[in-house]
Protein backbone atom coordinates (compact mmCIF):
# COMPACT_ATOMS: atom_id res chain seq x y z
CA UNK A 1 0.00 0.00 0.00
CA UNK A 2 1.29 3.48 -0.79
CA UNK A 3 0.54 6.70 1.09
CA UNK A 4 -2.40 7.64 -1.12
CA UNK A 5 -4.09 4.23 -0.73
CA UNK A 6 -3.59 4.37 3.03
CA UNK A 7 -5.02 7.85 3.33
CA UNK A 8 -8.17 7.12 1.37
CA UNK A 9 -8.80 3.97 3.39
CA UNK A 10 -8.22 5.43 6.84
CA UNK A 11 -11.92 5.90 7.62
CA UNK A 12 -12.86 2.38 6.61
CA UNK A 13 -9.92 1.18 8.70
CA UNK A 14 -11.21 3.02 11.76
CA UNK A 15 -14.69 1.58 11.16
CA UNK A 16 -13.19 -1.90 10.99
CA UNK A 17 -14.59 -2.36 7.49
CA UNK A 18 -11.37 -3.32 5.68
CA UNK A 19 -10.70 -6.96 5.04
CA UNK A 20 -7.94 -8.66 6.98
CA UNK A 21 -5.26 -8.39 4.26
CA UNK A 22 -5.97 -4.68 3.62
CA UNK A 23 -5.91 -3.95 7.33
CA UNK A 24 -2.54 -5.65 7.79
CA UNK A 25 -1.03 -3.86 4.80
CA UNK A 26 -2.29 -0.52 6.07
CA UNK A 27 -0.93 -1.08 9.58
CA UNK A 28 2.43 -2.16 8.18
CA UNK A 29 2.65 1.02 6.11
CA UNK A 30 1.61 3.30 8.96
CA UNK A 31 4.15 1.78 11.33
CA UNK A 32 6.94 3.06 9.08
CA UNK A 33 5.45 6.31 7.71
CA UNK A 34 5.39 9.46 9.84
CA UNK A 35 3.17 11.35 7.39
CA UNK A 36 0.48 8.64 7.41
CA UNK A 37 0.69 8.50 11.21
CA UNK A 38 -0.20 12.20 11.18
CA UNK A 39 -3.10 11.55 8.83
CA UNK A 40 -4.32 8.73 11.05
CA UNK A 41 -4.22 11.02 14.12
CA UNK A 42 -6.22 13.63 12.24
CA UNK A 43 -8.72 11.05 11.05
CA UNK A 44 -9.16 9.80 14.62
CA UNK A 45 -9.64 13.40 15.76
CA UNK A 46 -12.64 14.08 13.57
CA UNK A 47 -14.07 10.61 14.19
CA UNK A 48 -13.93 11.29 17.92
CA UNK A 49 -15.30 14.78 17.43
CA UNK A 50 -18.31 13.53 15.52
CA UNK A 51 -18.86 10.81 18.12
CA UNK A 52 -19.34 13.51 20.70
CA UNK A 53 -22.03 14.99 18.46
CA UNK A 54 -24.41 12.08 18.83
CA UNK A 55 -27.23 12.84 21.21
CA UNK A 56 -29.80 10.56 22.79
CA UNK A 57 -33.38 11.43 22.06
CA UNK A 58 -34.92 13.05 25.16
CA UNK A 59 -36.43 10.51 27.53
CA UNK A 60 -39.76 12.33 27.78
CA UNK A 61 -40.02 12.17 23.98
CA UNK A 62 -39.52 8.40 24.11
CA UNK A 63 -42.20 8.03 26.78
CA UNK A 64 -44.57 10.23 24.78
CA UNK A 65 -43.96 8.20 21.61
CA UNK A 66 -44.62 4.93 23.43
CA UNK A 67 -47.84 6.26 24.91
CA UNK A 68 -49.09 7.57 21.57
CA UNK A 69 -48.24 4.31 19.82
CA UNK A 70 -50.09 2.31 22.48
CA UNK A 71 -53.18 4.50 22.00
CA UNK A 72 -53.13 4.32 18.20
CA UNK A 73 -52.63 0.55 18.22
CA UNK A 74 -55.44 0.07 20.73
CA UNK A 75 -57.73 2.08 18.43
CA UNK A 76 -56.66 0.10 15.39
CA UNK A 77 -57.14 -3.19 17.25
CA UNK A 78 -60.66 -2.15 18.28
CA UNK A 79 -61.51 -1.16 14.70
CA UNK A 80 -60.17 -4.46 13.43
CA UNK A 81 -62.27 -6.45 15.92
CA UNK A 82 -65.38 -4.44 15.05
CA UNK A 83 -64.91 -5.03 11.34
CA UNK A 84 -64.42 -8.78 11.96
CA UNK A 85 -67.69 -8.91 13.89
CA UNK A 86 -69.42 -6.92 11.16
CA UNK A 87 -68.18 -9.36 8.57
CA UNK A 88 -69.64 -12.21 10.62
CA UNK A 89 -72.89 -10.27 11.00
CA UNK A 90 -72.72 -10.56 14.78
CA UNK A 91 -72.53 -6.96 15.85
CA UNK A 92 -76.10 -6.11 14.89
CA UNK A 93 -77.63 -9.47 15.68
CA UNK A 94 -76.47 -9.62 19.29
CA UNK A 95 -75.34 -12.72 21.16
CA UNK A 96 -78.86 -14.01 21.83
CA UNK A 97 -79.43 -14.17 18.09
CA UNK A 98 -76.86 -16.95 17.97
CA UNK A 99 -79.30 -19.23 19.75
CA UNK A 100 -82.24 -18.24 17.59
CA UNK A 101 -83.94 -16.52 20.50
CA UNK A 102 -85.63 -13.14 20.32
CA UNK A 103 -84.10 -11.02 23.06
CA UNK A 104 -86.97 -8.67 23.58
CA UNK A 105 -88.42 -10.27 26.73
CA UNK A 106 -86.70 -10.25 30.13
CA UNK A 107 -87.95 -13.68 31.10
CA UNK A 108 -86.35 -15.21 28.01
CA UNK A 109 -83.07 -13.38 28.69
CA UNK A 110 -83.04 -14.61 32.31
CA UNK A 111 -83.72 -18.20 31.26
CA UNK A 112 -80.96 -18.04 28.66
CA UNK A 113 -78.47 -16.59 31.16
CA UNK A 114 -79.29 -19.35 33.70
CA UNK A 115 -78.85 -21.95 31.00
CA UNK A 116 -75.42 -20.57 30.04
CA UNK A 117 -74.28 -20.52 33.69
CA UNK A 118 -75.40 -24.14 34.06
CA UNK A 119 -73.54 -25.20 30.90
CA UNK A 120 -70.37 -23.42 32.06
CA UNK A 121 -70.46 -24.96 35.54
CA UNK A 122 -71.12 -28.49 34.26
CA UNK A 123 -68.45 -28.37 31.58
CA UNK A 124 -65.87 -27.00 34.04
CA UNK A 125 -66.53 -29.89 36.41
CA UNK A 126 -66.35 -32.38 33.56
CA UNK A 127 -63.03 -30.97 32.25
CA UNK A 128 -61.55 -30.93 35.76
CA UNK A 129 -62.44 -34.58 36.30
CA UNK A 130 -61.15 -35.49 32.85
CA UNK A 131 -57.81 -33.79 33.47
CA UNK A 132 -57.36 -35.55 36.83
CA UNK A 133 -58.07 -38.89 35.17
CA UNK A 134 -55.54 -38.14 32.41
CA UNK A 135 -52.95 -37.17 35.02
CA UNK A 136 -53.41 -40.43 36.89
CA UNK A 137 -53.31 -42.52 33.74
CA UNK A 138 -50.39 -40.94 31.91
CA UNK A 139 -48.45 -39.41 34.81
CA UNK A 140 -47.77 -36.31 32.71
CA UNK A 141 -48.88 -32.72 33.25
CA UNK A 142 -51.97 -32.15 31.20
CA UNK A 143 -52.72 -28.66 32.42
CA UNK A 144 -52.09 -27.06 29.06
CA UNK A 145 -55.34 -25.16 29.38
CA UNK A 146 -53.77 -22.92 32.06
CA UNK A 147 -50.52 -22.67 30.16
CA UNK A 148 -49.66 -19.59 28.12
CA UNK A 149 -47.07 -20.41 25.43
CA UNK A 150 -46.42 -16.74 24.63
CA UNK A 151 -44.87 -16.08 28.05
CA UNK A 152 -42.97 -19.36 28.23
CA UNK A 153 -39.50 -20.44 27.25
CA UNK A 154 -38.91 -24.10 26.46
CA UNK A 155 -35.70 -25.27 28.13
CA UNK A 156 -35.62 -28.94 27.23
CA UNK A 157 -37.52 -31.53 25.19
CA UNK A 158 -37.10 -35.29 25.72
CA UNK A 159 -38.99 -38.37 24.57
CA UNK A 160 -40.86 -40.18 27.35
CA UNK A 161 -42.51 -43.57 27.63
CA UNK A 162 -45.72 -44.45 25.79
CA UNK A 163 -44.94 -42.17 22.82
CA UNK A 164 -45.16 -39.13 25.04
CA UNK A 165 -42.88 -36.11 25.22
CA UNK A 166 -41.52 -34.30 28.29
CA UNK A 167 -41.09 -30.55 27.91
CA UNK A 168 -39.31 -28.44 30.50
CA UNK A 169 -40.94 -25.03 30.45
CA UNK A 170 -39.76 -21.88 32.14
CA UNK A 171 -42.62 -19.48 32.47
CA UNK A 172 -42.56 -15.89 33.69
CA UNK A 173 -45.85 -14.90 35.22
CA UNK A 174 -46.61 -11.20 35.26
CA UNK A 175 -48.36 -9.80 38.32
CA UNK A 176 -49.69 -6.41 39.16
CA UNK A 177 -48.77 -5.09 42.56
CA UNK A 178 -50.35 -1.96 43.99
CA UNK A 179 -49.38 0.02 47.05
CA UNK A 180 -47.73 3.18 48.30
CA UNK A 181 -43.97 3.74 48.13
CA UNK A 182 -43.95 3.40 51.93
CA UNK A 183 -45.02 -0.27 51.66
CA UNK A 184 -41.95 -2.41 52.11
CA UNK A 185 -42.66 -4.71 49.16
CA UNK A 186 -43.40 -1.80 46.79
CA UNK A 187 -40.32 0.03 48.01
CA UNK A 188 -38.11 -3.01 47.36
CA UNK A 189 -39.54 -3.47 43.88
CA UNK A 190 -38.90 0.20 43.09
CA UNK A 191 -35.34 -0.09 44.42
CA UNK A 192 -34.83 -3.14 42.21
CA UNK A 193 -36.33 -1.37 39.19
CA UNK A 194 -33.75 1.40 39.63
CA UNK A 195 -31.17 -1.14 38.52
CA UNK A 196 -33.10 -2.40 35.50
CA UNK A 197 -30.39 -2.28 32.83
CA UNK A 198 -32.68 -2.37 29.82
CA UNK A 199 -35.10 0.47 30.24
CA UNK A 200 -34.11 3.99 31.36
CA UNK A 201 -37.81 4.89 31.43
CA UNK A 202 -38.42 2.33 34.18
CA UNK A 203 -35.40 3.65 36.08
CA UNK A 204 -36.58 7.27 35.88
CA UNK A 205 -40.09 6.30 36.99
CA UNK A 206 -38.80 4.32 39.96
CA UNK A 207 -36.48 7.16 41.05
CA UNK A 208 -39.39 9.60 40.79
CA UNK A 209 -41.65 7.37 42.88
CA UNK A 210 -39.00 7.12 45.60
CA UNK A 211 -38.40 10.86 45.81
CA UNK A 212 -39.14 12.22 49.25
CA UNK A 213 -38.72 8.78 50.84
CA UNK A 214 -36.20 8.74 53.66
CA UNK A 215 -34.02 5.83 54.67
CA UNK A 216 -30.51 4.70 53.98
CA UNK A 217 -31.66 2.10 51.42
CA UNK A 218 -33.18 4.84 49.24
CA UNK A 219 -30.18 7.11 49.72
CA UNK A 220 -27.71 4.34 48.82
CA UNK A 221 -29.70 3.39 45.72
CA UNK A 222 -29.79 7.03 44.60
CA UNK A 223 -26.05 7.41 45.21
CA UNK A 224 -25.38 4.29 43.16
CA UNK A 225 -27.56 5.61 40.34
CA UNK A 226 -25.88 9.02 40.36
CA UNK A 227 -22.45 7.43 40.11
CA UNK A 228 -23.14 4.60 37.69
CA UNK A 229 -26.27 5.04 35.60
CA UNK A 230 -25.33 5.43 31.91
CA UNK A 231 -28.31 7.69 31.20
CA UNK A 232 -27.91 11.38 32.10
CA UNK A 233 -31.66 11.91 32.54
CA UNK A 234 -31.78 9.13 35.15
CA UNK A 235 -28.75 10.59 36.94
CA UNK A 236 -30.39 14.01 36.98
CA UNK A 237 -33.58 12.57 38.44
CA UNK A 238 -31.57 10.74 41.11
CA UNK A 239 -29.78 13.98 42.00
CA UNK A 240 -33.16 15.61 42.60
CA UNK A 241 -33.92 12.77 45.00
CA UNK A 242 -30.63 13.34 46.81
CA UNK A 243 -31.46 16.95 47.70
CA UNK A 244 -33.05 15.79 50.97
CA UNK A 245 -29.79 14.03 51.91
CA UNK A 246 -27.55 16.97 50.99
CA UNK A 247 -26.14 17.39 54.51
CA UNK A 248 -25.12 13.74 54.72
CA UNK A 249 -21.30 13.36 54.36
CA UNK A 250 -21.50 10.30 52.04
CA UNK A 251 -23.91 12.15 49.78
CA UNK A 252 -21.65 15.20 49.68
CA UNK A 253 -18.66 13.04 48.76
CA UNK A 254 -20.64 11.56 45.88
CA UNK A 255 -21.77 15.01 44.75
CA UNK A 256 -18.14 16.15 44.68
CA UNK A 257 -17.26 13.08 42.66
CA UNK A 258 -20.07 13.85 40.20
CA UNK A 259 -18.97 17.48 39.97
CA UNK A 260 -15.49 16.40 38.96
CA UNK A 261 -16.13 13.34 36.86
CA UNK A 262 -19.60 13.29 35.33
CA UNK A 263 -19.56 13.70 31.56
CA UNK A 264 -22.78 15.69 31.37
CA UNK A 265 -22.85 19.44 32.01
CA UNK A 266 -26.45 19.47 33.30
CA UNK A 267 -25.67 16.78 35.84
CA UNK A 268 -22.63 18.71 37.07
CA UNK A 269 -24.67 21.92 37.28
CA UNK A 270 -27.31 20.14 39.38
CA UNK A 271 -24.58 18.70 41.62
CA UNK A 272 -23.05 22.09 42.38
CA UNK A 273 -26.48 23.57 43.09
CA UNK A 274 -27.11 20.86 45.69
CA UNK A 275 -23.66 21.23 47.24
CA UNK A 276 -23.91 25.00 47.34
CA UNK A 277 -27.53 26.12 46.98
CA UNK A 278 -28.03 29.46 45.27
CA UNK A 279 -29.17 32.28 47.61
CA UNK A 280 -28.86 30.08 50.70
CA UNK A 281 -26.34 30.03 53.51
CA UNK A 282 -24.09 26.99 53.56
CA UNK A 283 -20.76 26.00 55.06
CA UNK A 284 -17.87 25.52 52.71
CA UNK A 285 -15.48 22.85 53.90
CA UNK A 286 -11.79 22.83 52.90
CA UNK A 287 -12.22 19.74 50.73
CA UNK A 288 -15.14 21.32 48.87
CA UNK A 289 -13.04 24.42 48.29
CA UNK A 290 -10.23 22.26 46.88
CA UNK A 291 -12.72 20.57 44.54
CA UNK A 292 -13.98 23.96 43.35
CA UNK A 293 -10.42 25.20 42.82
CA UNK A 294 -9.66 22.12 40.74
CA UNK A 295 -12.69 22.83 38.59
CA UNK A 296 -11.62 26.46 38.20
CA UNK A 297 -8.31 25.22 36.83
CA UNK A 298 -10.13 23.06 34.31
CA UNK A 299 -10.05 25.02 31.10
CA UNK A 300 -13.06 23.39 29.44
CA UNK A 301 -15.55 23.44 32.30
CA UNK A 302 -18.93 24.75 31.27
CA UNK A 303 -19.70 28.37 32.00
CA UNK A 304 -22.36 27.85 34.65
CA UNK A 305 -20.25 25.53 36.83
CA UNK A 306 -17.21 27.78 36.50
CA UNK A 307 -19.27 30.85 37.35
CA UNK A 308 -20.73 29.16 40.44
CA UNK A 309 -17.28 27.97 41.58
CA UNK A 310 -15.92 31.48 41.12
CA UNK A 311 -18.81 32.99 43.07
CA UNK A 312 -18.55 30.52 45.96
CA UNK A 313 -14.78 30.87 46.31
CA UNK A 314 -15.05 34.66 46.12
CA UNK A 315 -17.79 34.70 48.77
CA UNK A 316 -15.52 32.91 51.26
CA UNK A 317 -12.51 34.99 50.17
CA UNK A 318 -10.68 31.88 49.02
CA UNK A 319 -8.05 32.12 46.31
CA UNK A 320 -9.09 30.69 42.97
CA UNK A 321 -6.09 28.42 42.62
CA UNK A 322 -4.69 27.53 46.08
CA UNK A 323 -6.80 27.31 49.19
Amino acid at each position, binding site marked *: MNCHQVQVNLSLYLYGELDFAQEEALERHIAGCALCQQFLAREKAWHTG*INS*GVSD*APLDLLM*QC*RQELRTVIAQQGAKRNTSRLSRLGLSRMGWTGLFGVAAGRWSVRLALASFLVFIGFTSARWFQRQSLTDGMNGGAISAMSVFDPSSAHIRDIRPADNHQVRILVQQ*VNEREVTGTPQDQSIRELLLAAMQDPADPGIRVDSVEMLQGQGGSDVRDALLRTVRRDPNAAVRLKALEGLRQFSSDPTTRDTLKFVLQHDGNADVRSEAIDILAPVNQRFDITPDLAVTLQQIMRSEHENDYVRARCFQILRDVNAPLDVY
Partner: protein
Amino acid sequence: MQAEAVGTLAVRRASERIDERELIRSAQHGDPEAFEQLVRSYDQNVLRMAFNLLHSQEDARDIYQEVFLRVYRNLPRFRFDCSFSTWLYRIVANLCLDQIRKRKVRKESSAAVETANGELDRLQFIPEHRADGDPQRQLMSAEVKTRINEVLDELTPRERIVFQMRHFQGMRLRAIGEALGVTEEAAKNCLFRATQKMRAALGDFV
Protein backbone atom coordinates in the same frame (compact mmCIF):
# COMPACT_ATOMS: atom_id res chain seq x y z
CA MET B 1 -36.73 -9.59 48.79
CA GLN B 2 -34.70 -7.04 46.81
CA ALA B 3 -32.38 -9.71 45.47
CA GLU B 4 -35.43 -11.76 44.58
CA ALA B 5 -36.98 -8.81 42.79
CA VAL B 6 -33.74 -8.12 40.88
CA GLY B 7 -33.68 -11.79 40.00
CA THR B 8 -37.25 -11.63 38.71
CA LEU B 9 -36.43 -8.63 36.55
CA ALA B 10 -33.29 -10.30 35.26
CA VAL B 11 -35.22 -13.46 34.38
CA ARG B 12 -37.85 -11.38 32.63
CA ARG B 13 -35.23 -9.50 30.62
CA ALA B 14 -33.32 -12.68 29.86
CA SER B 15 -36.45 -14.43 28.67
CA GLU B 16 -37.22 -11.39 26.48
CA ARG B 17 -33.85 -11.73 24.79
CA ILE B 18 -33.85 -15.50 24.53
CA ASP B 19 -35.88 -15.83 21.42
CA GLU B 20 -36.92 -12.85 19.37
CA ARG B 21 -38.40 -15.26 16.87
CA GLU B 22 -40.89 -16.52 19.44
CA LEU B 23 -41.73 -12.96 20.36
CA ILE B 24 -42.39 -12.10 16.72
CA ARG B 25 -44.56 -15.21 16.31
CA SER B 26 -46.61 -14.29 19.38
CA ALA B 27 -47.01 -10.74 18.08
CA GLN B 28 -48.09 -12.12 14.71
CA HIS B 29 -50.80 -14.07 16.53
CA GLY B 30 -52.07 -10.84 18.04
CA ASP B 31 -50.38 -10.89 21.45
CA PRO B 32 -50.17 -7.19 22.40
CA GLU B 33 -47.62 -7.83 25.16
CA ALA B 34 -45.28 -9.50 22.68
CA PHE B 35 -45.63 -6.61 20.27
CA GLU B 36 -44.89 -4.13 23.02
CA GLN B 37 -41.77 -6.05 24.04
CA LEU B 38 -40.67 -6.08 20.43
CA VAL B 39 -41.17 -2.31 20.18
CA ARG B 40 -39.23 -1.73 23.39
CA SER B 41 -36.30 -3.77 22.10
CA TYR B 42 -35.78 -1.37 19.23
CA ASP B 43 -37.57 1.89 19.84
CA GLN B 44 -34.75 3.72 21.62
CA ASN B 45 -32.43 3.14 18.67
CA VAL B 46 -35.09 4.06 16.14
CA LEU B 47 -35.92 7.29 17.91
CA ARG B 48 -32.25 8.22 18.40
CA MET B 49 -31.54 7.60 14.74
CA ALA B 50 -34.49 9.69 13.58
CA PHE B 51 -33.67 12.44 16.08
CA ASN B 52 -30.02 12.65 15.05
CA LEU B 53 -30.84 12.54 11.36
CA LEU B 54 -33.68 15.02 11.36
CA HIS B 55 -32.70 17.26 14.30
CA SER B 56 -36.35 17.69 15.16
CA GLN B 57 -38.35 16.17 18.00
CA GLU B 58 -41.56 16.53 16.03
CA ASP B 59 -40.22 14.76 12.94
CA ALA B 60 -38.54 12.06 15.05
CA ARG B 61 -41.87 11.43 16.79
CA ASP B 62 -43.66 11.13 13.44
CA ILE B 63 -41.05 8.70 12.14
CA TYR B 64 -41.34 6.63 15.33
CA GLN B 65 -45.11 6.35 15.01
CA GLU B 66 -45.05 5.59 11.31
CA VAL B 67 -42.31 2.96 11.65
CA PHE B 68 -44.01 0.99 14.39
CA LEU B 69 -47.46 1.33 12.86
CA ARG B 70 -46.11 -0.13 9.62
CA VAL B 71 -44.49 -2.92 11.63
CA TYR B 72 -47.80 -3.54 13.41
CA ARG B 73 -49.80 -3.64 10.17
CA ASN B 74 -47.34 -5.76 8.21
CA LEU B 75 -46.03 -8.06 10.92
CA PRO B 76 -48.51 -10.85 10.07
CA ARG B 77 -46.93 -10.94 6.59
CA PHE B 78 -43.34 -11.02 7.92
CA ARG B 79 -41.94 -14.41 6.84
CA PHE B 80 -38.44 -14.33 8.38
CA ASP B 81 -36.82 -13.98 4.94
CA CYS B 82 -34.45 -11.52 6.56
CA SER B 83 -33.78 -10.62 10.17
CA PHE B 84 -36.40 -8.54 11.94
CA SER B 85 -33.88 -5.74 12.57
CA THR B 86 -33.02 -5.56 8.86
CA TRP B 87 -36.69 -5.30 8.01
CA LEU B 88 -37.26 -2.67 10.70
CA TYR B 89 -34.26 -0.55 9.70
CA ARG B 90 -35.35 -0.75 6.07
CA ILE B 91 -38.59 0.94 7.09
CA VAL B 92 -36.73 3.49 9.22
CA ALA B 93 -34.22 4.25 6.47
CA ASN B 94 -36.89 4.71 3.80
CA LEU B 95 -38.98 7.01 5.96
CA CYS B 96 -35.96 9.06 7.04
CA LEU B 97 -34.72 9.30 3.45
CA ASP B 98 -38.09 10.63 2.34
CA GLN B 99 -38.09 13.16 5.13
CA ILE B 100 -34.53 14.32 4.41
CA ARG B 101 -35.36 14.70 0.72
CA LYS B 102 -38.37 16.81 1.59
CA ARG B 103 -36.16 18.84 3.89
CA LYS B 104 -33.55 19.37 1.20
CA VAL B 105 -36.19 21.19 -0.76
CA ARG B 106 -36.91 23.45 2.19
CA LYS B 107 -33.18 23.80 2.95
CA GLU B 108 -33.51 24.20 6.67
CA SER B 109 -30.95 25.79 8.87
CA SER B 110 -28.35 23.18 9.74
CA ALA B 111 -27.66 24.08 13.31
CA ALA B 112 -31.22 24.66 14.46
CA VAL B 113 -33.17 22.11 16.49
CA GLU B 114 -36.80 22.26 17.51
CA THR B 115 -37.41 21.76 21.21
CA ALA B 116 -40.28 22.18 23.61
CA ASN B 117 -38.75 25.57 24.46
CA GLY B 118 -38.53 26.72 20.87
CA GLU B 119 -35.70 26.52 18.39
CA LEU B 120 -32.24 26.05 19.84
CA ASP B 121 -28.76 25.59 18.50
CA ARG B 122 -28.01 21.90 17.91
CA LEU B 123 -24.63 22.33 19.57
CA GLN B 124 -26.37 22.67 22.92
CA PHE B 125 -27.40 19.05 22.62
CA ILE B 126 -23.91 17.78 22.01
CA PRO B 127 -22.83 16.06 25.21
CA GLU B 128 -20.00 18.00 26.71
CA HIS B 129 -16.91 16.09 27.74
CA ARG B 130 -14.65 17.30 30.47
CA ALA B 131 -11.20 18.37 29.56
CA ASP B 132 -8.92 15.56 30.55
CA GLY B 133 -5.81 16.49 28.70
CA ASP B 134 -6.91 14.62 25.57
CA PRO B 135 -5.58 16.69 22.64
CA GLN B 136 -8.25 15.28 20.32
CA ARG B 137 -10.99 16.81 22.41
CA GLN B 138 -9.21 20.14 22.59
CA LEU B 139 -9.30 20.26 18.81
CA MET B 140 -13.07 20.11 18.90
CA SER B 141 -13.76 23.80 19.27
CA ALA B 142 -17.24 25.11 18.73
CA GLU B 143 -16.13 26.22 15.28
CA VAL B 144 -15.22 22.68 14.28
CA LYS B 145 -18.49 21.28 15.63
CA THR B 146 -20.45 23.82 13.64
CA ARG B 147 -18.49 22.91 10.54
CA ILE B 148 -19.17 19.19 11.09
CA ASN B 149 -22.88 19.85 11.23
CA GLU B 150 -22.71 21.94 8.08
CA VAL B 151 -20.88 19.17 6.25
CA LEU B 152 -23.36 16.54 7.47
CA ASP B 153 -26.14 18.65 6.02
CA GLU B 154 -24.30 18.92 2.72
CA LEU B 155 -24.14 15.14 2.24
CA THR B 156 -26.66 13.52 -0.08
CA PRO B 157 -29.59 11.92 1.77
CA ARG B 158 -28.25 8.42 1.11
CA GLU B 159 -24.70 9.33 2.17
CA ARG B 160 -26.04 10.90 5.29
CA ILE B 161 -28.14 7.93 6.27
CA VAL B 162 -25.30 5.48 5.62
CA PHE B 163 -22.96 7.66 7.64
CA GLN B 164 -25.54 7.90 10.44
CA MET B 165 -26.10 4.15 10.51
CA ARG B 166 -22.40 3.34 10.52
CA HIS B 167 -21.04 6.10 12.69
CA PHE B 168 -23.81 6.73 15.22
CA GLN B 169 -25.73 3.45 15.22
CA GLY B 170 -22.62 1.29 14.85
CA MET B 171 -24.27 -0.91 12.19
CA ARG B 172 -22.06 -3.03 9.96
CA LEU B 173 -21.96 -2.17 6.26
CA ARG B 174 -23.53 -5.51 5.37
CA ALA B 175 -26.54 -4.74 7.58
CA ILE B 176 -26.73 -1.19 6.20
CA GLY B 177 -26.74 -2.56 2.66
CA GLU B 178 -29.53 -4.99 3.53
CA ALA B 179 -31.56 -2.26 5.19
CA LEU B 180 -31.20 0.07 2.20
CA GLY B 181 -31.69 -2.66 -0.37
CA VAL B 182 -28.22 -2.18 -1.88
CA THR B 183 -25.08 -4.31 -1.90
CA GLU B 184 -22.50 -4.10 0.84
CA GLU B 185 -20.10 -2.67 -1.73
CA ALA B 186 -22.54 0.11 -2.62
CA ALA B 187 -22.99 0.97 1.05
CA LYS B 188 -19.20 0.98 1.42
CA ASN B 189 -18.82 3.37 -1.51
CA CYS B 190 -21.47 5.62 -0.02
CA LEU B 191 -19.69 5.69 3.33
CA PHE B 192 -16.41 6.28 1.55
CA ARG B 193 -17.80 9.32 -0.30
CA ALA B 194 -19.30 10.68 2.92
CA THR B 195 -16.04 10.39 4.84
CA GLN B 196 -14.07 11.88 1.93
CA LYS B 197 -16.36 14.90 1.99
CA MET B 198 -16.01 15.18 5.76
CA ARG B 199 -12.25 14.95 5.54
CA ALA B 200 -12.02 17.52 2.76
CA ALA B 201 -14.32 19.94 4.54
CA LEU B 202 -12.60 19.58 7.90
CA GLY B 203 -9.08 19.65 6.51
CA ASP B 204 -8.39 23.18 7.71
CA PHE B 205 -9.93 22.65 11.11
CA VAL B 206 -8.27 19.53 12.52
